[in-house]
């Protein structure tokens, strides 16, 4: 079969140890952290590390959920609006006297359920995910306004503050929750059937179906997980302020969550990417946002700075991959756009 040339030393090395795909963007993250740390003493403080992660936790959860959906080749536009809905439902339940842990679980359930409905629409009604979740976004951003008449709902049960303001072993609870969820998610993707099926459906839906994968179940599961992650976001947001606002999460959150996943190497075309990658992407975005405020970057410049940093980061990552000498991997995007459809494909040389 295809020839191996042991005289080509670098090939042998390459085979012996391959850096994981996430290395590149992780290095970019380290560089960005380094630059901000050099610029600002306050940025270097340990407490800032906690705050950075804390402030990034909501987008982190959304990015986590988004990853499941993106892996199947879908997209979830409703994830920000899910924060709005669950963020007011939780305090309403608390007002009704439901103990906070139960209210929190119910909220997660509602998030998963609402997500599952998107999944059902995508799979059975066969509407493109963009449209199905666009509609879900509309519904989920109207619901809290309608229920509350645009008023905020104050949380009456002080225990609920634990979710957003508590600390476990010195780490903010939202960060602990996110880390746990990300680990569980990564284990799920790697060590369960359903996890592999998510990749399979996104990689080649038709082939997955022919192999006997239950596409319906897989699709619905992905959207339900994303909905649940959105509900985590809603719980954290509301708990941090102890007030539920009907328009929380309707800002940059959605965008940032998709961007985090894509920066971390998740393909919008499905089938490629990992949770560690998406989480590194989310931390990168949180770092840039935090760093800009800590170092007092003028707000007019902030969109530009974040855009440029992310572009540079991804470009560096892309370049690093191209240097690995694996032509098919030259660029992940090329691999996706051509390699994917193009089976063996052409060396990405265009």
């Amino acid at each position, binding site marked *: 079969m295809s020839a191996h040339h042991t005289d080509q030393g670098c090939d042998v090395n390459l085979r012996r140890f391959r850096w994981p795909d996430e290395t590149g963007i992780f290095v970019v993250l380290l560089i960005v952290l380094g630059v901000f740390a050099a610029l600002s003493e*306050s940025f270097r403080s340990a407490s800032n590390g906690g705050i950075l992660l804390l402030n990034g936790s909501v987008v982190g959860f959304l990015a986590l959920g988004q990853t499941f959906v993106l892996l199947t080749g879908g997209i979830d536009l409703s994830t920000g609006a899910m924060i709005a809905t669950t963020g007011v439902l939780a305090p309403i339940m608390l007002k009704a006297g439901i103990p906070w842990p139960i209210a929190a679980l119910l909220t997660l359930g509602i998030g998963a359920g609402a997500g599952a409905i998107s999944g059902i629409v995508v799979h059975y009604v066969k509407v493109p995910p963009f449209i199905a979740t666009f509609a879900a976004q509309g519904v989920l951003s109207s619901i809290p306004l309608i229920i509350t008449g645009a008023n905020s709902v104050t949380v009456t049960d002080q225990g609920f503050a634990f979710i957003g303001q508590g600390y476990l072993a010195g780490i903010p609870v939202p960060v602990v929750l996110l880390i746990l969820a990300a680990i569980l998610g990564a284990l799920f993707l790697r060590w369960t059937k359903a996890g592999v099926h998510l990749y399979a459906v996104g990689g080649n839906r038709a082939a997955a179906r022919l192999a006997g994968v239950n596409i319906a179940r897989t699709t619905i599961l992905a959207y339900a997980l994303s909905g649940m992650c959105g509900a985590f976001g809603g719980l954290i947001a509301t708990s941090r302020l102890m007030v539920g606002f009907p328009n929380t999460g309707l800002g940059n959150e959605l965008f940032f969550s998709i961007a985090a996943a894509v920066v971390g190497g998740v393909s919008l075309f499905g089938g490629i990417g990992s949770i560690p990658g998406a989480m590194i992407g989310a931390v990168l975005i949180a770092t840039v946002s*935090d760093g800009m405020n800590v170092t007092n970057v003028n707000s007019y410049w902030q969109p530009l700075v974040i855009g440029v940093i992310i572009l540079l980061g991804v470009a560096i990552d892309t370049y690093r991959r191209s240097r690995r000498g694996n032509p098919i991997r030259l660029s992940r995007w090329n691999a996706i756009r051509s390699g994917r459809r193009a089976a063996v494909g052409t060396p990405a040389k265009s």
Partner: protein
Amino acid sequence: GCSGPGASTGSGGASGGASALPANCKSDKPTLAVSLPNTVNPYYVAMRQSFIDNGAKAGFTVKVAIANDSDSSQLAQVQSFIQQNVCVVALNPVTSGPGAAEVNLLTKAHIPVFTVNIDADRDQVKSGGGSIVEYVGADQKEGGKVMADAALEDLGSKPAVVGIAGEPNETVTVDRDKAFEAEITAKSSTSKVVASVDTKVDPQVSLQVVTEMLQGHPEINTVFADTGPAAVGSIQAIKQLGLSGKVTLYAFCAANTKLDSVLYRGCAAQQPSLYAQIVADNAAKFIKGETVPEMVFQPVKVFTEGQQPAEDELG
């Protein structure tokens, strides 16, 4: 303190030339059309309710359109008012520049316009040939100024090191920030503004960016939040960083939030319901041919320790 409806700081005023008014004004229940930027901010929720209630009292059919913070939807809504040939329009522009274009359109259609809360850009109104019957709103600059005074008073001899939790993209809020800064530096040469962040008028965003600002500037002892939602987020940010007692907040008032003696020590409130009421009443007068003042600057209402602004007294 607060002055009663109709208090006028402007001069001149206008009177309704009954002949020039739209036909609709002669009907039993003429239409008062209101366009508001959004109804996700409790401020505008209060204003809308007041327009509905007081407009009806003043004998109007009230039609409220919400622009969802988009200039182009607001323009569309104003055009739709022109189509429906309403009697009078109360306009709270999303932003003042585009607001002028809307005023000009309405003037061209011979529909009288009242601006409320946010005025339309006067230069553009003038150059575009439009006219505004009356503006009703708070004196933004005064709001910033009184909060600066309160901060300096509470600090005693210490200089104020200020971080602004602001909305840099709206002229009204920028006015508040500028007035705050001008007052604080004028009165105390050692005081200064060291940082400002964009809160996007969202409590959640405010919480995040204010924590980050306080991280980056441990020397800050005073936060000025120029909107209610920013105040909500700032309070939590200060509390959760354990800076309560070290950092004091002055703000435009947050909804449902009581002031205290340690952290949230002063706020200035606008009174959206009152502005709406003044507009409704004066619009009724105007179409009857009476004269109304051209500018109504309501002073802001100041709250301090222990007080809680009412439902419709907001930043």
